[in-house]
Structures are given as structure tokens and as C-alpha cells.
């Protein structure tokens, strides 16, 4: 085993050990389990965005829409259809995927800033639907009157509603499956093709790769997992409101990916952790936390464009 592969495995082991043990070490460093839950959920969203942004090289800025659709899908399923957490999660994922699949053909031929503009503008449709359709979505007040429910396996039940630790591990299992699938996809010939498109789209096209179809697939996969993250986010809060769909949320995901490092698999998770901690701290310290978050965006762009992992990798190399 060469040094790089060893480093990679060591990093993977480190991330998983930290994540698995989080409920035990978080209280010692002044955190709490819910903070860990938020980091894992938003980290999953940022990693899904990065599947498209970092690995396919497509500038998507509108992922909040599919995140929010996942959240509403989960919340509304539990509220109106089936009182089951897993059904909510499944529907949330499907809604996000389906919306992505339908919007996809309209945007996959666009590139660069144009792609960013169209994706963020499309996101607003879902925001206005959630905002205006009071009777079903609860409008501006959000979707209330539901909670996540204990998991029922037939032979045993796990109370993820009251037991925060159990809920954290529930989230972590979903996270592991999603991240595992994404990693597997990225290692497959399909994933390598996506990276080829990122590096040189024209050459990929000349080699006979159906570039538009690959970008569509990558977009749908990304929307699917961001939908999962959205559904988990709704379950975490026992609440959804239209702000989960608002365009500023999309920017948060992108800055998480950039801050952690777009070219690395775990980067967005690290970015999400920093972002969540910072927001948590700032909003408890000052009313003007928005300015600081904005300033943070500016500073990251000016001084940390490669992200934390990118900077570390550069130093090592």
C-alpha cells in the first residue's frame, strides 16, 4: 500500500470514528447531540451538492429547492398520509428526485453562470408554492402538527422521537448509506466519466460520451441525496417552513462545499461543520449574525478559495 492510499484510508477511518463517537465526545467540547445531527444532515446536503459542483463541474446554485421538497415531502407524508418516519423519508427522497428529473432536461444544456442563474431561479417556484399554498403547506408559518415517529421493525421499536442518541444514529445510518452510494458511484466508470467531463467537456464529447445525459444523471443523483438530507432536516426539526426552500439556503450549501474543499470527498462535511458551529455561535452572540455570515462568504472566497482540505493538500504536496 502506498502512502497516499494509506492516508486516504486513515482519513476515512478518522471521519467515521469521529462521527460514530460524536454523541459521546460532543458534550465534552461544549457541544450537544442536536448540533451533531445538524452537521451530519447539512453535511450530507453539501456533499450531494458537491457531487455536481465538485465532481461534475456544473455550477448549480439552486439545490435548496430539492432540499426543501424533500423536507416538505417527508413532513406532508407523515402529516397527511402515513404516520411513519421511514415512509416520510422515502417520499421526501422521491419528491426531490422526481422534481430534479423533471427540471433536468430544461437546464442540462446550459453551462457556467447561465446554469447557476437558471437553477436558482427555478428554485423560487417551489418556494412560492410552499409560501402561497396555505391550506396544505401551512404557508409562511410552516408545516406544523406532526412529529417523527418511533421506528417499528416488527420485532422491536426504536424510539427516535425522544431518544436523541438513537435519532443521531438513525441519521448517521442514512448518511452512511447515501455517502456510500455516492462514493461507490464516483469510483465507478460512471463517476470517472463525470470527472472527465469536469476536466475537459469538449474532449469528453469527442470521445463519444453523451455529456448531456451524464450531466442529467449527475444532477438527478445530486437532487436525490439532497432530498434525503432535506427529509432528515424536517425529521430533525419536526417542522418545515418555506425558508428551507429559499434561495439563500442554496448559497449556504455551496459555501459549505467551497469552504471544506470542493475537490475532496469529505470537504463539504467539514465545511458544513464549520458553518453550523459558526452560525450557532454567532446567532447566540449578536443580532447581526447575517453580516458576519456574509463577511465569512467574502473572506472564504478571497483567502480560502480551495477550501481547507485543498489548502492542506497543497501544503503536503
Amino acid at each position, binding site marked *: 500500500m502506498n502512502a497516499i492510499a494509506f492516508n486516504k484510508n486513515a482519513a476515512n477511518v478518522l471521519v467515521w470514528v469521529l462521527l460514530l463517537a460524536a454523541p459521546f465526545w460532543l458534550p465534552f467540547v461544549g457541544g450537544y447531540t442536536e448540533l451533531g445531527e445538524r452537521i451530519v444532515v447539512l453535511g450530507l446536503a453539501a456533499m450531494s451538492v458537491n457531487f455536481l459542483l465538485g465532481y461534475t463541474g456544473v455550477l448549480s446554485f439552486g439545490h435548496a429547492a430539492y432540499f426543501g421538497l424533500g423536507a416538505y415531502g417527508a413532513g406532508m407524508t407523515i402529516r397527511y398520509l402515513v404516520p411513519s418516519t421511514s415512509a416520510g423519508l422515502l417520499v421526501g427522497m422521491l419528491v426531490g428526485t422526481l422534481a430534479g428529473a423533471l427540471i433536468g432536461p430544461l437546464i442540462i444544456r446550459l453551462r457556467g453562470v447561465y446554469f447557476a442563474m437558471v437553477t436558482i*431561479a*427555478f428554485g423560487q417556484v417551489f418556494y412560492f408554492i410552499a409560501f402561497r399554498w396555505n391550506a396544505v403547506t401551512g404557508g409562511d408559518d410552516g408545516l406544523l402538527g406532526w412529529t417523527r415517529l418511533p421506528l417499528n421493525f416488527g420485532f422491536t421499536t426504536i424510539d427516535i422521537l425522544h431518544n436523541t442518541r438513537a435519532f443521531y444514529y438513525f441519521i448517521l445510518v442514512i448518511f452512511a448509506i447515501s455517502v456510500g452510494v455516492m462514493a461507490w458511484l464516483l469510483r465507478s466508470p460512471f463517476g470517472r466519466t463525470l470527472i472527465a467531463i469536469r476536466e475537459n467537456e469538449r474532449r469528453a464529447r469527442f470521445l463519444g460520451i453523451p455529456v448531456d445525459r451524464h450531466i442529467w444523471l449527475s444532477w438527478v443523483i445530486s437532487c436525490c441525496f439532497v432530498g434525503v438530507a432535506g427529509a432528515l432536516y424536517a425529521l430533525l426539526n419536526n417542522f418545515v417552513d418555506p425558508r428551507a426552500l429559499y434561495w439563500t439556503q442554496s448559497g449556504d450549501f455551496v459555501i459549505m462545499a467551497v469552504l471544506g474543499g470542493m475537490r475532496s470527498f469529505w470537504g463539504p462535511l467539514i465545511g458544513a461543520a464549520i458553518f453550523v458551529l459558526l452560525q450557532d455561535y454567532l446567532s447566540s452572540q449578536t443580532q447581526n449574525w447575517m453580516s458576519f455570515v456574509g463577511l465569512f462568504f467574502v473572506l472564504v472566497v478571497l483567502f480560502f478559495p480551495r477550501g481547507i482540505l485543498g489548502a492542506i493538500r497543497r501544503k503536503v504536496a
Partner: protein
Amino acid sequence: MTQLVLFNIFNGLIVGAFYALMALGLSLILNLSGVINFAHGGFLAIGGYVAFTLLPYVGFWGALVLSPILTAILGIIVERFLIRRLYGRDPLYSLLLTFGLAFIFEDGTRFLWGAQSLPFQVPIWLVTPLSGDFFFLTGYRLFMVFIVALAVAALFFILTYTRLGIRIRAGTLDLETVAALGVNVRILRSMNFGLGVYLAGLAGVLAVGQLGLQPTIGSSLIMPSFVAIIVGGLGSLPGTLLGGLLIGVASGITTVFFPSATEAVMYVMMAAVLLVRPRGLLGEEGRF
């Protein structure tokens, strides 16, 4: 009924003219520098608030003239010290930077002028209703259209006949050649950014006269301008103007028949345009 529809079409044109004014500024910056200025809404809010502060000293007309100029100066400063560093890099970075600026501007206006909405006094003769039947058609709305028309005419005049305008248009097509011909592209981009932000500031003064002052005024108005640009076609200023008017009219008509879809209809229009003609109505083939 016909009367109501007609009135709403007219109303939509007014709103559309306003979207177009804001979108033209965005479009100018996007075409020359490839930067999506998310902070455009923030500049709009600043234009409004500066006008509010100036009002007691220079009156409405003074504020209408001065505030956009001050906003443009702020825009040029921002371009000089922040955005200029990002030209030639992945557009992602300028996007994120202006995104952060939008947060700072919105929160900054809230910090300086307070979160509650403030009234903006326009001259009495402008707010008197013009017609008894359509009580909400105030003179101010017509005045807005007049100013927008004037600004758009002036913009197209500048772009067609002045040296600066001709250089901006040339730079939009091929910036490298323009630079090779001895034009200082840095200054050109700065002036162009300032011009775009000037339009945002002007739109801000007009908007607060109609809607009052709120810190969130910018973030609620930026998305329609995006849609206007996409519908009209990237790279085409007449397209942006057309796009703005079209989405305004579409929202106006939808208000009559299906009021809760008023905001959503422009996105449906955008989807239709992208489906049939991905480059937008007047956009050039293969530019983006």
C-alpha cells in the same frame, strides 16, 4: 371584466418596466464581466435608504438625482477592491462573493436604519389618484414609468453613441481584442459596474416611493430580474427589457384569474422559454 384585465395588463407593464430597469443593470455587468451580481438587490436597497436619508436636506428631486450616483460610487468601490480580484477565476467565486455582500448589505441597512419599514415621502401631487374608477392608479406609477423610460433611453443612447458605451459593447463581444486596441479594460469594467449599480440605485429610489423602505426589499426583487434576463436572453439588453415587460404583464394577467400564482407565473414562463428556446427570446446562439 375586460376593463379589469386591461387595467392589470397596464399595471403589469409598470411593474415590468421596473423589473427591466433592475435587470438591465444586472445584465450590463453580466455581459461584460461574467459576474452575476447577487448584491444588486442590496445596492437597490441602499439606493432607497440613501434617498430616505437625503430627503430632508435635498428634497425628493435632489434625492432622485443624488442617491443613485452615491450608490454607483459605492458600487465602483466594491468592484475595485473585491470583485476585480476575481475576474478570470471560476465564476463560482464572484457568485459567492456577491452573495455574501448581499447578506452584508441587507443586514447593514437593517443595522443602520432599523428593521421596521419606514415611509418614504414623495411629492403630494405625485400620489394623488388620477382616476376615480381605478383608485390605485396614482400619478406616482406613471411617473415611475416615465423615469424608467427616460433611463432606458439614456442607457441605449450611451451604449450607441458615446465612446464608453461603444467600448462596453465591444468588450461584451471580445474583451481581449478591446484590451489589445489600447483600451484600459480595468477602468472600462469599473465604469460598467458603476453604470449597472447606478440603475439599481435609481430603481431603489423609485421602489421605495411605491413600496416603502424595508431591508428585505432587495432580496425580494432580485429573482424577477434574473427571470427577466433569462426570458429575454443572456447577452441581449433589448432582450432583458422585453423579458422584464413580459413577465410583468404575465403576472398582471395572472392576478386577475389566479391571484395566488402571481409570483409563480414568471417561472413557468421561464420554463417554457427554456424548453422552446434555451438561449432566451433575443439571446445569441452559443454565447453561454
